[in-house]
Protein backbone atom coordinates (compact mmCIF):
# COMPACT_ATOMS: atom_id res chain seq x y z
CA UNK A 1 0.00 0.00 0.00
CA UNK A 2 2.84 2.36 0.80
CA UNK A 3 4.23 1.82 -2.70
CA UNK A 4 0.88 2.91 -4.07
CA UNK A 5 1.01 6.20 -2.25
CA UNK A 6 4.60 6.64 -3.30
CA UNK A 7 3.73 6.02 -6.95
CA UNK A 8 3.33 9.51 -8.31
CA UNK A 9 1.06 8.49 -11.19
CA UNK A 10 -1.39 6.76 -8.89
CA UNK A 11 -1.32 9.70 -6.49
CA UNK A 12 -2.05 12.30 -9.17
CA UNK A 13 -4.60 10.13 -10.97
CA UNK A 14 -6.55 9.15 -7.89
CA UNK A 15 -6.54 12.69 -6.44
CA UNK A 16 -8.10 14.11 -9.59
CA UNK A 17 -10.54 11.21 -9.83
CA UNK A 18 -11.69 11.65 -6.23
CA UNK A 19 -12.12 15.38 -6.83
CA UNK A 20 -14.18 14.67 -9.95
CA UNK A 21 -16.41 12.20 -8.14
CA UNK A 22 -16.92 14.77 -5.41
CA UNK A 23 -17.84 17.46 -7.96
CA UNK A 24 -20.23 15.10 -9.73
CA UNK A 25 -21.87 13.96 -6.49
CA UNK A 26 -22.35 17.46 -5.13
CA UNK A 27 -22.98 19.17 -8.47
CA UNK A 28 -26.03 21.15 -7.24
CA UNK A 29 -24.00 22.53 -4.32
CA UNK A 30 -20.83 23.18 -6.34
CA UNK A 31 -22.39 24.82 -9.40
CA UNK A 32 -23.11 28.54 -8.98
CA UNK A 33 -26.14 28.47 -11.36
CA UNK A 34 -28.77 26.20 -12.85
CA UNK A 35 -26.97 24.53 -15.79
CA UNK A 36 -29.99 24.64 -18.08
CA UNK A 37 -31.31 28.08 -17.17
CA UNK A 38 -31.50 30.20 -20.32
CA UNK A 39 -30.90 33.90 -19.82
CA UNK A 40 -30.88 36.01 -23.02
CA UNK A 41 -29.69 39.05 -21.04
CA UNK A 42 -26.25 37.55 -20.46
CA UNK A 43 -25.46 35.84 -23.78
CA UNK A 44 -21.78 35.18 -24.63
CA UNK A 45 -20.36 36.89 -21.56
CA UNK A 46 -16.62 36.54 -20.99
CA UNK A 47 -15.51 35.04 -17.67
CA UNK A 48 -16.47 37.25 -14.73
CA UNK A 49 -17.01 37.02 -11.00
CA UNK A 50 -20.64 36.02 -11.53
CA UNK A 51 -19.83 33.57 -14.34
CA UNK A 52 -16.26 32.34 -13.74
CA UNK A 53 -16.07 30.50 -17.11
CA UNK A 54 -18.38 32.91 -18.96
CA UNK A 55 -21.76 32.17 -20.53
CA UNK A 56 -22.76 30.42 -23.75
CA UNK A 57 -24.92 31.59 -26.65
CA UNK A 58 -28.08 31.06 -24.58
CA UNK A 59 -26.72 32.82 -21.53
CA UNK A 60 -26.17 29.62 -19.61
CA UNK A 61 -23.38 29.46 -17.03
CA UNK A 62 -20.52 27.44 -18.52
CA UNK A 63 -18.98 26.54 -15.18
CA UNK A 64 -22.28 25.11 -13.96
CA UNK A 65 -22.69 23.15 -17.18
CA UNK A 66 -19.21 21.71 -16.82
CA UNK A 67 -19.89 20.77 -13.20
CA UNK A 68 -23.09 18.94 -14.15
CA UNK A 69 -21.42 17.54 -17.27
CA UNK A 70 -19.02 15.62 -15.04
CA UNK A 71 -21.97 13.45 -14.00
CA UNK A 72 -22.67 12.46 -17.60
CA UNK A 73 -19.05 11.74 -18.48
CA UNK A 74 -18.34 9.67 -15.38
CA UNK A 75 -21.63 7.83 -15.76
CA UNK A 76 -20.93 6.99 -19.40
CA UNK A 77 -17.37 5.91 -18.56
CA UNK A 78 -18.44 3.66 -15.70
CA UNK A 79 -21.47 2.14 -17.46
CA UNK A 80 -19.53 1.43 -20.65
CA UNK A 81 -16.69 -0.23 -18.76
CA UNK A 82 -19.02 -2.23 -16.50
CA UNK A 83 -20.99 -3.48 -19.49
CA UNK A 84 -17.84 -4.33 -21.42
CA UNK A 85 -16.32 -6.05 -18.39
CA UNK A 86 -19.41 -8.14 -17.88
CA UNK A 87 -19.55 -9.33 -21.47
CA UNK A 88 -15.77 -9.62 -21.70
CA UNK A 89 -15.37 -11.66 -18.53
CA UNK A 90 -18.22 -14.05 -19.33
CA UNK A 91 -17.20 -14.67 -22.94
CA UNK A 92 -13.46 -14.59 -22.18
CA UNK A 93 -13.90 -17.15 -19.41
CA UNK A 94 -15.98 -19.50 -21.53
CA UNK A 95 -13.45 -19.14 -24.30
CA UNK A 96 -10.31 -19.57 -22.23
CA UNK A 97 -11.42 -22.09 -19.65
CA UNK A 98 -13.58 -24.43 -21.69
CA UNK A 99 -11.95 -23.99 -25.10
CA UNK A 100 -13.19 -26.06 -28.02
CA UNK A 101 -15.95 -24.91 -30.33
CA UNK A 102 -17.12 -22.15 -27.98
CA UNK A 103 -13.60 -20.75 -27.95
CA UNK A 104 -13.46 -20.77 -31.75
CA UNK A 105 -16.83 -19.09 -32.13
CA UNK A 106 -16.16 -16.42 -29.54
CA UNK A 107 -12.73 -15.63 -30.91
CA UNK A 108 -14.09 -15.31 -34.45
CA UNK A 109 -16.70 -12.91 -33.10
CA UNK A 110 -13.95 -10.89 -31.42
CA UNK A 111 -11.98 -10.86 -34.68
CA UNK A 112 -15.06 -9.60 -36.47
CA UNK A 113 -15.58 -6.73 -34.06
CA UNK A 114 -11.89 -5.87 -34.14
CA UNK A 115 -11.87 -5.77 -37.93
CA UNK A 116 -13.62 -2.40 -37.95
CA UNK A 117 -11.58 0.49 -36.53
CA UNK A 118 -13.25 1.28 -33.20
CA UNK A 119 -14.20 4.87 -33.90
CA UNK A 120 -15.87 3.92 -37.18
CA UNK A 121 -17.80 1.11 -35.56
CA UNK A 122 -18.90 3.28 -32.64
CA UNK A 123 -19.85 6.12 -34.97
CA UNK A 124 -21.78 3.89 -37.35
CA UNK A 125 -23.63 2.20 -34.49
CA UNK A 126 -24.38 5.39 -32.56
CA UNK A 127 -25.33 7.12 -35.80
CA UNK A 128 -27.71 4.46 -37.06
CA UNK A 129 -29.24 3.60 -33.69
CA UNK A 130 -30.05 7.30 -33.34
CA UNK A 131 -28.84 9.95 -30.92
CA UNK A 132 -29.19 9.50 -27.17
CA UNK A 133 -27.15 8.48 -24.17
CA UNK A 134 -28.35 4.87 -24.09
CA UNK A 135 -27.47 4.24 -27.73
CA UNK A 136 -24.14 5.96 -27.23
CA UNK A 137 -23.29 3.63 -24.37
CA UNK A 138 -24.38 0.58 -26.38
CA UNK A 139 -22.19 1.63 -29.28
CA UNK A 140 -19.17 2.09 -27.00
CA UNK A 141 -19.72 -1.24 -25.26
CA UNK A 142 -19.75 -2.86 -28.69
CA UNK A 143 -16.25 -1.58 -29.38
CA UNK A 144 -14.82 -2.01 -25.87
CA UNK A 145 -15.81 -5.52 -24.79
CA UNK A 146 -13.42 -7.30 -27.14
CA UNK A 147 -10.27 -6.18 -25.35
CA UNK A 148 -11.57 -7.53 -22.04
CA UNK A 149 -12.58 -10.83 -23.60
CA UNK A 150 -9.11 -11.21 -25.05
CA UNK A 151 -7.25 -10.30 -21.89
CA UNK A 152 -9.42 -12.56 -19.74
CA UNK A 153 -9.02 -15.45 -22.17
CA UNK A 154 -5.27 -14.97 -22.45
CA UNK A 155 -4.80 -14.79 -18.69
CA UNK A 156 -6.93 -17.86 -18.11
CA UNK A 157 -4.99 -19.82 -20.69
CA UNK A 158 -1.76 -19.19 -18.82
CA UNK A 159 -3.20 -19.62 -15.34
CA UNK A 160 -5.16 -22.80 -15.96
CA UNK A 161 -2.05 -24.83 -16.78
CA UNK A 162 -0.42 -23.90 -13.47
CA UNK A 163 0.15 -26.52 -10.84
CA UNK A 164 -2.14 -25.01 -8.23
CA UNK A 165 -5.07 -25.35 -10.61
CA UNK A 166 -4.13 -28.95 -11.37
CA UNK A 167 -3.88 -29.58 -7.65
CA UNK A 168 -7.29 -28.08 -6.99
CA UNK A 169 -8.78 -30.21 -9.72
CA UNK A 170 -7.07 -33.26 -8.31
CA UNK A 171 -8.67 -32.53 -4.97
CA UNK A 172 -12.05 -32.62 -6.67
CA UNK A 173 -12.83 -28.90 -6.94
CA UNK A 174 -15.57 -27.97 -9.41
CA UNK A 175 -14.98 -25.76 -12.44
CA UNK A 176 -16.87 -22.92 -10.84
CA UNK A 177 -14.85 -23.20 -7.62
CA UNK A 178 -11.58 -23.21 -9.54
CA UNK A 179 -12.67 -20.22 -11.62
CA UNK A 180 -13.76 -18.13 -8.68
CA UNK A 181 -11.12 -19.09 -6.13
CA UNK A 182 -8.04 -19.81 -8.19
CA UNK A 183 -8.30 -18.18 -11.56
CA UNK A 184 -10.14 -14.90 -10.94
CA UNK A 185 -7.70 -13.59 -8.31
CA UNK A 186 -4.88 -14.18 -10.76
CA UNK A 187 -6.40 -12.33 -13.68
CA UNK A 188 -7.65 -9.39 -11.66
CA UNK A 189 -4.56 -7.22 -12.08
CA UNK A 190 -4.53 -6.90 -15.87
CA UNK A 191 -8.28 -6.34 -15.83
CA UNK A 192 -8.03 -3.51 -13.32
CA UNK A 193 -5.37 -1.82 -15.41
CA UNK A 194 -7.18 -1.98 -18.74
CA UNK A 195 -10.51 -1.07 -17.15
CA UNK A 196 -8.99 2.09 -15.69
CA UNK A 197 -7.46 3.08 -19.00
CA UNK A 198 -10.72 2.05 -20.69
CA UNK A 199 -12.79 4.52 -18.66
CA UNK A 200 -10.60 7.32 -19.98
CA UNK A 201 -10.95 6.06 -23.53
CA UNK A 202 -14.72 5.69 -23.20
CA UNK A 203 -15.08 9.25 -21.88
CA UNK A 204 -12.97 10.57 -24.73
CA UNK A 205 -14.87 8.62 -27.38
CA UNK A 206 -18.24 9.57 -25.88
CA UNK A 207 -17.30 13.24 -25.94
CA UNK A 208 -16.18 12.89 -29.55
CA UNK A 209 -19.43 11.26 -30.62
CA UNK A 210 -21.49 13.83 -28.72
CA UNK A 211 -19.43 16.54 -30.37
CA UNK A 212 -20.49 15.11 -33.74
CA UNK A 213 -24.09 15.16 -32.55
CA UNK A 214 -24.54 11.40 -32.11
CA UNK A 215 -24.44 11.21 -28.36
CA UNK A 216 -26.00 13.05 -25.50
CA UNK A 217 -28.55 15.57 -26.73
CA UNK A 218 -29.16 19.18 -25.67
CA UNK A 219 -30.12 20.68 -23.30
CA UNK A 220 -28.36 18.04 -21.15
CA UNK A 221 -25.00 19.55 -20.22
CA UNK A 222 -22.36 17.30 -21.77
CA UNK A 223 -18.77 18.33 -22.45
CA UNK A 224 -18.57 17.14 -26.05
CA UNK A 225 -21.82 18.74 -27.12
CA UNK A 226 -20.85 21.96 -25.31
CA UNK A 227 -17.83 22.11 -27.60
CA UNK A 228 -20.12 21.60 -30.56
CA UNK A 229 -22.34 24.47 -29.35
CA UNK A 230 -19.31 26.72 -29.10
CA UNK A 231 -18.03 26.10 -32.62
CA UNK A 232 -20.12 28.85 -34.20
CA UNK A 233 -18.91 31.41 -31.69
CA UNK A 234 -15.28 30.41 -31.86
CA UNK A 235 -13.99 33.83 -32.88
CA UNK A 236 -16.22 35.90 -30.65
CA UNK A 237 -16.24 33.75 -27.54
CA UNK A 238 -13.43 31.18 -27.53
CA UNK A 239 -13.90 30.48 -23.81
CA UNK A 240 -17.07 28.52 -24.65
CA UNK A 241 -14.82 25.89 -26.16
CA UNK A 242 -11.75 26.21 -23.98
CA UNK A 243 -13.21 25.12 -20.64
CA UNK A 244 -15.23 22.04 -21.65
CA UNK A 245 -12.23 20.76 -23.64
CA UNK A 246 -10.00 21.29 -20.63
CA UNK A 247 -12.47 19.37 -18.49
CA UNK A 248 -12.42 16.40 -20.88
CA UNK A 249 -8.63 16.41 -21.05
CA UNK A 250 -8.10 16.58 -17.29
CA UNK A 251 -10.58 13.77 -16.70
CA UNK A 252 -9.07 11.48 -19.32
CA UNK A 253 -5.58 12.37 -18.13
CA UNK A 254 -6.53 11.39 -14.57
CA UNK A 255 -7.63 7.91 -15.66
CA UNK A 256 -4.52 7.52 -17.78
CA UNK A 257 -2.28 8.50 -14.85
CA UNK A 258 -4.13 6.05 -12.66
CA UNK A 259 -4.00 3.24 -15.21
CA UNK A 260 -0.29 3.75 -15.86
CA UNK A 261 0.51 3.84 -12.18
CA UNK A 262 -1.56 0.74 -11.49
CA UNK A 263 0.21 -1.09 -14.28
CA UNK A 264 3.57 -0.24 -12.76
CA UNK A 265 2.46 -1.60 -9.41
CA UNK A 266 0.32 -4.56 -10.45
CA UNK A 267 2.12 -6.00 -13.43
CA UNK A 268 5.34 -7.63 -12.31
CA UNK A 269 6.59 -8.03 -15.87
CA UNK A 270 6.31 -4.33 -16.42
CA UNK A 271 8.06 -3.53 -13.18
CA UNK A 272 11.01 -5.64 -14.20
CA UNK A 273 11.23 -4.24 -17.70
CA UNK A 274 11.14 -0.58 -16.85
CA UNK A 275 13.12 0.29 -13.78
CA UNK A 276 11.81 3.26 -11.85
Amino acid sequence: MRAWIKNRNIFIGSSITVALIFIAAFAPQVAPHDPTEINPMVRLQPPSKEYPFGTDHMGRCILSRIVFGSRISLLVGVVVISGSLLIGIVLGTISGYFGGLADDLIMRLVDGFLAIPSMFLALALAGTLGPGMFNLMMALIAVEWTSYARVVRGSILTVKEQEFVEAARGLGASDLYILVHHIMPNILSPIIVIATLGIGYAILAAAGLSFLGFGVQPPTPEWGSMLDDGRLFMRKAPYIMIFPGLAIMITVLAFNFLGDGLRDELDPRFRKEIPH
Partner: protein
Amino acid sequence: MLGYIFKRVLLIIPALLFVSMVSFSMAYLAPGDPAEILLMSPEGSPSPEAIDAFRVRMGLDQPIHIQYLRWLEKVLHGDLGYSFISERPVADAITNSFKATLKLSLVSMIVSIVVSIPLGILAAIKHNTMIDDLCRLGALIGVSIPNFWQAFLLILLFSVHLDWLPVAGYGGGDIEHMILPAITLGTSSAAVTTRLMRSSLLEALSQDYIITARAKGLPERIVIGKHAIKNALIPVVTMLGLNLGFLLNGAVVTEWVFGWPGIGDLVVDSIYQRDFTMIQGSILFIAVIFVTLNLLVDISYTYLNPRIRYESVD
Protein backbone atom coordinates in the same frame (compact mmCIF):
# COMPACT_ATOMS: atom_id res chain seq x y z
CA MET B 1 6.28 -19.56 -41.09
CA LEU B 2 4.23 -20.22 -44.24
CA GLY B 3 1.79 -22.25 -42.20
CA TYR B 4 1.40 -19.36 -39.79
CA ILE B 5 0.72 -16.88 -42.58
CA PHE B 6 -1.74 -19.24 -44.23
CA LYS B 7 -3.65 -19.73 -40.99
CA ARG B 8 -3.59 -16.00 -40.33
CA VAL B 9 -4.97 -15.20 -43.79
CA LEU B 10 -7.66 -17.86 -43.46
CA LEU B 11 -8.91 -16.26 -40.25
CA ILE B 12 -9.63 -13.05 -42.12
CA ILE B 13 -12.47 -14.63 -44.04
CA PRO B 14 -14.91 -15.13 -41.14
CA ALA B 15 -13.98 -11.69 -39.77
CA LEU B 16 -14.79 -9.97 -43.03
CA LEU B 17 -17.97 -11.98 -43.45
CA PHE B 18 -19.02 -10.73 -40.03
CA VAL B 19 -18.13 -7.17 -41.00
CA SER B 20 -20.20 -7.49 -44.16
CA MET B 21 -23.22 -8.54 -42.09
CA VAL B 22 -22.72 -5.71 -39.61
CA SER B 23 -22.31 -3.08 -42.31
CA PHE B 24 -25.24 -4.45 -44.26
CA SER B 25 -27.51 -4.40 -41.23
CA MET B 26 -26.69 -0.73 -40.52
CA ALA B 27 -29.65 0.28 -42.66
CA TYR B 28 -31.95 -1.92 -40.57
CA LEU B 29 -30.67 -0.83 -37.18
CA ALA B 30 -31.93 2.64 -37.90
CA PRO B 31 -35.36 3.47 -36.59
CA GLY B 32 -37.94 4.14 -39.30
CA ASP B 33 -38.24 3.08 -42.90
CA PRO B 34 -35.25 4.27 -44.94
CA ALA B 35 -37.36 4.69 -48.08
CA GLU B 36 -39.87 6.88 -46.32
CA ILE B 37 -37.23 8.96 -44.57
CA LEU B 38 -35.31 9.55 -47.76
CA LEU B 39 -38.34 10.62 -49.75
CA MET B 40 -39.56 12.98 -47.03
CA SER B 41 -39.77 16.49 -48.46
CA PRO B 42 -40.78 19.90 -47.13
CA GLU B 43 -44.22 19.36 -48.71
CA GLY B 44 -44.83 16.43 -46.37
CA SER B 45 -44.76 12.65 -46.40
CA PRO B 46 -44.24 10.87 -49.72
CA SER B 47 -47.15 8.98 -51.29
CA PRO B 48 -47.29 5.21 -50.72
CA GLU B 49 -46.81 4.67 -54.47
CA ALA B 50 -43.62 6.72 -54.46
CA ILE B 51 -42.28 4.76 -51.49
CA ASP B 52 -43.06 1.44 -53.20
CA ALA B 53 -41.44 2.54 -56.43
CA PHE B 54 -38.31 3.63 -54.56
CA ARG B 55 -38.19 0.34 -52.67
CA VAL B 56 -38.35 -1.65 -55.89
CA ARG B 57 -35.71 0.55 -57.50
CA MET B 58 -33.32 0.17 -54.56
CA GLY B 59 -34.15 -3.52 -54.09
CA LEU B 60 -35.61 -2.83 -50.65
CA ASP B 61 -38.76 -4.87 -51.44
CA GLN B 62 -36.94 -8.22 -51.15
CA PRO B 63 -36.63 -10.27 -47.94
CA ILE B 64 -33.61 -9.21 -45.91
CA HIS B 65 -31.44 -12.30 -46.44
CA ILE B 66 -32.01 -12.07 -50.20
CA GLN B 67 -31.04 -8.40 -50.08
CA TYR B 68 -27.90 -9.31 -48.15
CA LEU B 69 -26.86 -12.06 -50.53
CA ARG B 70 -27.50 -9.87 -53.56
CA TRP B 71 -25.51 -7.08 -51.97
CA LEU B 72 -22.68 -9.43 -51.03
CA GLU B 73 -22.53 -10.86 -54.53
CA LYS B 74 -22.23 -7.37 -55.99
CA VAL B 75 -19.68 -6.34 -53.37
CA LEU B 76 -17.51 -9.32 -54.24
CA HIS B 77 -17.53 -8.08 -57.80
CA GLY B 78 -16.40 -4.67 -56.64
CA ASP B 79 -19.82 -3.06 -57.00
CA LEU B 80 -20.80 -1.19 -53.85
CA GLY B 81 -23.99 0.21 -55.34
CA TYR B 82 -25.15 3.78 -55.70
CA SER B 83 -25.54 6.50 -53.13
CA PHE B 84 -29.11 6.91 -51.83
CA ILE B 85 -28.61 10.67 -51.92
CA SER B 86 -26.42 11.70 -54.84
CA GLU B 87 -26.92 8.46 -56.83
CA ARG B 88 -23.19 8.46 -57.55
CA PRO B 89 -21.38 5.10 -57.46
CA VAL B 90 -20.40 4.43 -53.83
CA ALA B 91 -17.07 2.91 -54.86
CA ASP B 92 -16.03 6.13 -56.62
CA ALA B 93 -16.85 8.29 -53.63
CA ILE B 94 -14.94 5.95 -51.33
CA THR B 95 -11.86 5.77 -53.55
CA ASN B 96 -11.71 9.54 -53.85
CA SER B 97 -12.06 10.16 -50.16
CA PHE B 98 -9.67 7.40 -49.24
CA LYS B 99 -6.99 9.07 -51.34
CA ALA B 100 -7.44 12.22 -49.27
CA THR B 101 -7.33 10.20 -46.04
CA LEU B 102 -4.21 8.37 -47.13
CA LYS B 103 -2.48 11.60 -48.00
CA LEU B 104 -3.33 13.17 -44.67
CA SER B 105 -2.40 10.00 -42.77
CA LEU B 106 1.02 9.78 -44.38
CA VAL B 107 1.80 13.39 -43.54
CA SER B 108 0.54 12.84 -39.98
CA MET B 109 2.71 9.80 -39.70
CA ILE B 110 5.76 11.75 -40.78
CA VAL B 111 4.91 14.48 -38.28
CA SER B 112 4.50 11.92 -35.53
CA ILE B 113 7.73 10.05 -36.36
CA VAL B 114 9.78 13.24 -36.52
CA VAL B 115 8.51 14.26 -33.09
CA SER B 116 8.27 10.94 -31.29
CA ILE B 117 11.46 9.04 -32.11
CA PRO B 118 13.86 11.81 -30.92
CA LEU B 119 11.69 12.49 -27.85
CA GLY B 120 11.55 8.80 -26.95
CA ILE B 121 15.32 8.45 -27.32
CA LEU B 122 15.89 11.60 -25.30
CA ALA B 123 13.60 10.40 -22.52
CA ALA B 124 15.35 7.03 -22.34
CA ILE B 125 18.86 8.49 -22.33
CA LYS B 126 17.87 11.05 -19.70
CA HIS B 127 16.03 8.36 -17.77
CA ASN B 128 14.58 9.50 -14.44
CA THR B 129 15.46 13.14 -14.96
CA MET B 130 13.28 16.20 -15.40
CA ILE B 131 13.52 15.80 -19.20
CA ASP B 132 12.26 12.22 -18.98
CA ASP B 133 9.38 13.35 -16.76
CA LEU B 134 8.43 16.10 -19.20
CA CYS B 135 8.50 13.73 -22.18
CA ARG B 136 6.32 11.23 -20.34
CA LEU B 137 3.88 13.91 -19.23
CA GLY B 138 3.75 15.21 -22.79
CA ALA B 139 3.03 11.73 -24.09
CA LEU B 140 0.28 11.22 -21.54
CA ILE B 141 -1.31 14.55 -22.49
CA GLY B 142 -1.01 13.55 -26.13
CA VAL B 143 -3.20 10.49 -25.65
CA SER B 144 -5.64 12.32 -23.37
CA ILE B 145 -6.32 15.46 -25.39
CA PRO B 146 -9.60 15.31 -27.32
CA ASN B 147 -8.65 15.72 -30.98
CA PHE B 148 -11.62 17.98 -31.75
CA TRP B 149 -10.54 20.31 -28.96
CA GLN B 150 -6.92 20.27 -30.05
CA ALA B 151 -8.10 21.12 -33.57
CA PHE B 152 -9.99 24.08 -32.18
CA LEU B 153 -6.98 25.35 -30.22
CA LEU B 154 -4.76 25.08 -33.29
CA ILE B 155 -7.29 26.87 -35.48
CA LEU B 156 -7.73 29.56 -32.86
CA LEU B 157 -4.00 30.20 -32.62
CA PHE B 158 -2.72 29.70 -36.17
CA SER B 159 -5.73 30.64 -38.26
CA VAL B 160 -7.74 33.15 -36.24
CA HIS B 161 -5.08 35.00 -34.23
CA LEU B 162 -1.92 34.68 -36.29
CA ASP B 163 -3.72 34.25 -39.61
CA TRP B 164 -0.90 32.01 -40.90
CA LEU B 165 -2.92 29.02 -42.04
CA PRO B 166 -6.39 28.40 -43.49
CA VAL B 167 -9.13 27.51 -40.99
CA ALA B 168 -10.30 24.43 -42.87
CA GLY B 169 -10.88 22.90 -46.27
CA TYR B 170 -8.99 20.83 -48.80
CA GLY B 171 -7.66 23.63 -51.01
CA GLY B 172 -6.43 21.24 -53.68
CA GLY B 173 -4.64 19.24 -51.01
CA ASP B 174 -1.72 21.66 -50.63
CA ILE B 175 0.56 21.59 -47.64
CA GLU B 176 -0.91 24.74 -46.07
CA HIS B 177 -4.29 23.08 -45.70
CA MET B 178 -2.68 19.93 -44.42
CA ILE B 179 -0.54 21.23 -41.56
CA LEU B 180 -3.16 21.67 -38.85
CA PRO B 181 -5.15 18.49 -39.56
CA ALA B 182 -1.89 16.52 -39.81
CA ILE B 183 -0.71 17.78 -36.42
CA THR B 184 -4.10 17.03 -34.87
CA LEU B 185 -4.23 13.56 -36.35
CA GLY B 186 -0.59 12.75 -35.58
CA THR B 187 -0.64 13.73 -31.91
CA SER B 188 -1.98 10.56 -30.33
CA SER B 189 0.19 8.33 -32.47
CA ALA B 190 3.21 10.50 -31.65
CA ALA B 191 2.41 10.10 -27.97
CA VAL B 192 2.14 6.33 -28.21
CA THR B 193 5.31 6.06 -30.28
CA THR B 194 7.27 8.24 -27.84
CA ARG B 195 6.34 5.94 -25.00
CA LEU B 196 7.19 2.85 -26.98
CA MET B 197 10.51 4.25 -28.17
CA ARG B 198 11.41 5.18 -24.62
CA SER B 199 10.56 1.82 -23.06
CA SER B 200 12.08 -0.11 -25.94
CA LEU B 201 15.37 1.77 -25.69
CA LEU B 202 15.40 1.38 -21.91
CA GLU B 203 14.99 -2.34 -22.34
CA ALA B 204 17.72 -2.50 -24.96
CA LEU B 205 20.06 -0.55 -22.70
CA SER B 206 19.68 -3.15 -19.97
CA GLN B 207 20.76 -6.03 -22.23
CA ASP B 208 24.02 -7.93 -21.89
CA TYR B 209 25.41 -6.82 -25.23
CA ILE B 210 25.26 -3.21 -24.07
CA ILE B 211 27.20 -4.08 -20.94
CA THR B 212 29.73 -5.85 -23.15
CA ALA B 213 29.96 -2.88 -25.48
CA ARG B 214 30.50 -0.55 -22.54
CA ALA B 215 33.02 -2.91 -20.99
CA LYS B 216 34.95 -2.91 -24.26
CA GLY B 217 35.34 0.80 -23.71
CA LEU B 218 33.22 1.94 -26.63
CA PRO B 219 32.18 5.57 -26.35
CA GLU B 220 28.61 6.03 -25.09
CA ARG B 221 27.65 7.67 -28.37
CA ILE B 222 28.41 4.46 -30.25
CA VAL B 223 26.96 2.18 -27.58
CA ILE B 224 23.65 3.99 -27.76
CA GLY B 225 23.63 4.99 -31.40
CA LYS B 226 24.94 1.86 -32.97
CA HIS B 227 23.89 -0.91 -30.61
CA ALA B 228 20.96 0.13 -28.48
CA ILE B 229 18.88 2.33 -30.79
CA LYS B 230 19.16 -0.06 -33.70
CA ASN B 231 17.68 -2.89 -31.67
CA ALA B 232 15.18 -0.69 -29.90
CA LEU B 233 13.76 0.49 -33.21
CA ILE B 234 12.45 -2.95 -34.24
CA PRO B 235 9.24 -2.92 -32.17
CA VAL B 236 8.79 0.77 -32.92
CA VAL B 237 8.87 0.21 -36.66
CA THR B 238 6.36 -2.63 -36.50
CA MET B 239 4.19 -0.47 -34.30
CA LEU B 240 4.12 2.22 -36.97
CA GLY B 241 1.99 -0.06 -39.12
CA LEU B 242 -0.52 -0.38 -36.30
CA ASN B 243 -0.43 3.38 -35.93
CA LEU B 244 -2.14 3.66 -39.28
CA GLY B 245 -5.12 2.11 -37.52
CA PHE B 246 -4.93 4.84 -34.91
CA LEU B 247 -4.82 7.40 -37.66
CA LEU B 248 -7.95 5.95 -39.27
CA ASN B 249 -9.80 6.26 -35.96
CA GLY B 250 -8.63 9.82 -35.48
CA ALA B 251 -9.59 10.67 -39.04
CA VAL B 252 -13.30 10.51 -38.17
CA VAL B 253 -13.37 13.66 -36.08
CA THR B 254 -10.28 15.40 -37.44
CA GLU B 255 -11.40 15.30 -41.06
CA TRP B 256 -14.86 16.44 -40.15
CA VAL B 257 -13.62 19.41 -38.10
CA PHE B 258 -11.22 20.55 -40.80
CA GLY B 259 -13.56 19.79 -43.67
CA TRP B 260 -10.94 17.44 -45.12
CA PRO B 261 -12.78 15.33 -47.71
CA GLY B 262 -11.52 11.94 -46.50
CA ILE B 263 -13.23 8.72 -45.55
CA GLY B 264 -13.91 9.87 -41.97
CA ASP B 265 -15.67 12.95 -43.23
CA LEU B 266 -17.56 10.81 -45.77
CA VAL B 267 -18.85 8.43 -43.09
CA VAL B 268 -19.96 11.24 -40.78
CA ASP B 269 -21.78 13.00 -43.62
CA SER B 270 -23.39 9.77 -44.84
CA ILE B 271 -24.71 9.14 -41.36
CA TYR B 272 -26.12 12.67 -41.14
CA GLN B 273 -27.83 12.14 -44.49
CA ARG B 274 -28.84 8.54 -43.77
CA ASP B 275 -27.13 7.49 -46.97
CA PHE B 276 -27.18 3.79 -46.15
CA THR B 277 -25.44 2.38 -49.22
CA MET B 278 -22.61 4.83 -48.58
CA ILE B 279 -22.38 3.85 -44.89
CA GLN B 280 -22.39 0.14 -45.74
CA GLY B 281 -19.74 0.54 -48.40
CA SER B 282 -17.41 2.74 -46.38
CA ILE B 283 -17.50 0.61 -43.25
CA LEU B 284 -16.76 -2.50 -45.29
CA PHE B 285 -13.98 -0.75 -47.17
CA ILE B 286 -12.36 0.60 -44.01
CA ALA B 287 -12.50 -2.85 -42.44
CA VAL B 288 -10.80 -4.46 -45.44
CA ILE B 289 -8.02 -1.86 -45.30
CA PHE B 290 -7.67 -2.24 -41.54
CA VAL B 291 -7.59 -6.03 -41.59
CA THR B 292 -5.02 -6.07 -44.40
CA LEU B 293 -2.85 -3.61 -42.50
CA ASN B 294 -2.98 -5.68 -39.35
CA LEU B 295 -2.11 -8.77 -41.35
CA LEU B 296 0.95 -7.09 -42.82
CA VAL B 297 2.01 -5.87 -39.39
CA ASP B 298 1.62 -9.37 -37.94
CA ILE B 299 3.58 -10.99 -40.72
CA SER B 300 6.41 -8.47 -40.56
CA TYR B 301 6.48 -8.82 -36.80
CA THR B 302 6.71 -12.59 -37.04
CA TYR B 303 9.46 -12.20 -39.57
CA LEU B 304 11.41 -9.81 -37.37
CA ASN B 305 10.76 -11.68 -34.16
CA PRO B 306 11.12 -15.44 -34.66
CA ARG B 307 10.16 -16.16 -31.06
CA ILE B 308 6.46 -15.75 -31.73
CA ARG B 309 6.46 -17.70 -34.97
CA TYR B 310 5.49 -21.04 -33.57
CA GLU B 311 2.99 -19.91 -31.04
CA SER B 312 -0.70 -20.31 -31.73
CA VAL B 313 -2.33 -17.78 -33.99
CA ASP B 314 -4.96 -16.54 -31.62
